[in-house]
């Protein structure tokens, strides 16, 4: 089936079997191997990309269902101005092996946009006011991204610094 994907602001036409996931379309059909395949079952978050601005698991998405959608992968982060987040991951030791990092980065960007829109989380004390980006909020909101090197403190610190700066909010420990 012929589809068009807008990936990192470039249009790509692809002729795909409907079984091809968005993840496999990126990696195998377009050579964009920055997005990683961890569990391939929606449990680890390594495949997280932004689709029309929202983070999703690319492994559970059929590519043909995203015909015409705007997709941002780790390869496109620099031009979205997210290189500061990548630098924060380096500064805070937000990885060891680095395999989960592309998914962590995309997920963090999607998550911070959700906070900007005022979405509550499971750990938000109240559903009413605008959520404050605490360490506990980051941990809860990033729980769909596993890191088997267990770099969670560094990941949290990196997102806290980047998100805190972008948000103008504090990143005090609430946990």
């Amino acid at each position, binding site marked *: 089936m012929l589809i068009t994907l807008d990936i990192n602001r470039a249009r790509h036409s692809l002729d795909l079997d409907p079984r091809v996931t968005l993840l496999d379309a990126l990696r195998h059909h377009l050579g964009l191997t920055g997005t990683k395949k961890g569990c391939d079952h*929606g449990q680890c978050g390594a495949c997280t990309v932004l689709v029309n601005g929202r983070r999703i698991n690319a492994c559970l998405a059929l590519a043909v269902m995203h015909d015409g959608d705007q997709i941002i992968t780790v390869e496109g982060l620099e031009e979205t101005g997210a290189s500061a987040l990548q630098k924060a991951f380096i500064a805070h030791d937000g990885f060891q092996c680095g395999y989960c990092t592309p998914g962590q980065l995309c997920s963090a960007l999607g998550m911070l946009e959700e906070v900007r829109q005022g979405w509550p989380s*499971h750990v938000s004390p109240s559903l009413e006011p605008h959520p404050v980006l605490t360490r506990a909020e980051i941990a809860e909101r990033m729980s769909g991204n596993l890191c088997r090197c267990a770099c969670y403190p560094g990941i949290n610190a990196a997102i806290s610094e980047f998100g805190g700066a972008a948000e103008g909010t504090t990143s005090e420990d609430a946990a």
Partner: protein
Amino acid sequence: MKPFDYYRAADLTEAAATHQPGSVFIAGGTNLVDLMKLQVMTPDRVIDIARLGLDRIEDDGDGLRIGALVSNSDLAADPRVRKRWPVLSRALLAGASGQLRNKATTGGNLLQRTRCPYFQDLATPCNKRTPGSGCAAMGGELRNHAVLGTSAHCLALNPGDMAVALRALDAVVEFRDAQGIAHAHPIAGFHLPPGTTPDVETVLPPGALITSVALPAPKGDRQIYRKVRDRASYAFALVSVAAVLRLERGRIVHAALAFGGLGTVPWRDPAVDALLTGEAPSMVLFDKAADLLLHPAQPREGTAFKLPLTRRLLRAVLEEATQ
């Protein structure tokens, strides 16, 4: 994945006309694509309904009408839901991950399949996956299995959080059948216990498509969703409680308690609600409610822990809700 034909439906009529035996509808796909990879589900035809436009939450008198394609994220974040139906927001936020909630839909979430490991393992018998093949969970390793509503053929747990809140809120599931006729079915009785046909999980006839969920005005202002799980986030419920209560002059005048992690369907026992209604809250009363709720439970090795856990959780939730 087994090969399938893919169709993208432009409207409800086309979706219905394209459906035939062996077809499935796909929206968020977070559960279905996974099961297709595992070949637990092997549809001949996959009909994409994601662009049908059923993605709005509309005011409906004093209630809401939630489009079937509203994402779990959008529903949880809706200001109306957060204000008047907070138990629904809380239930949604307690489920899955941020990525999954962005993709998962209201209609699809109601139809999510059990996470019984034997259902997902093609090497073992499962009456739900292959009717008549047997149940590997009987005598197998149990933990995330049901203790209420089970049968001799199936112990599979309904894994939902959202559905538990909808059960306590008396939601109504609205769907079109294959002939295009609109139906509305209370969430009570929408999910079917396994009985002798564990493969039949809801009242939806073949080819039917959920179009919306109607949410009536809340009958209680004290709403709590509390979920106990094996880890703090991103895990299915061991036990969860959705409580919707109203108190007048120190007495409970409305009680709706629904439970996740316990039943083969989102569990609610009208007798428990009736026991609480009209009474003044007390620990003795809450214990009686737990006795009544758990009386028909059939725990096994591996799931027996759920009974004392449910009792403690119920007491804590009722204590908080009646303060």
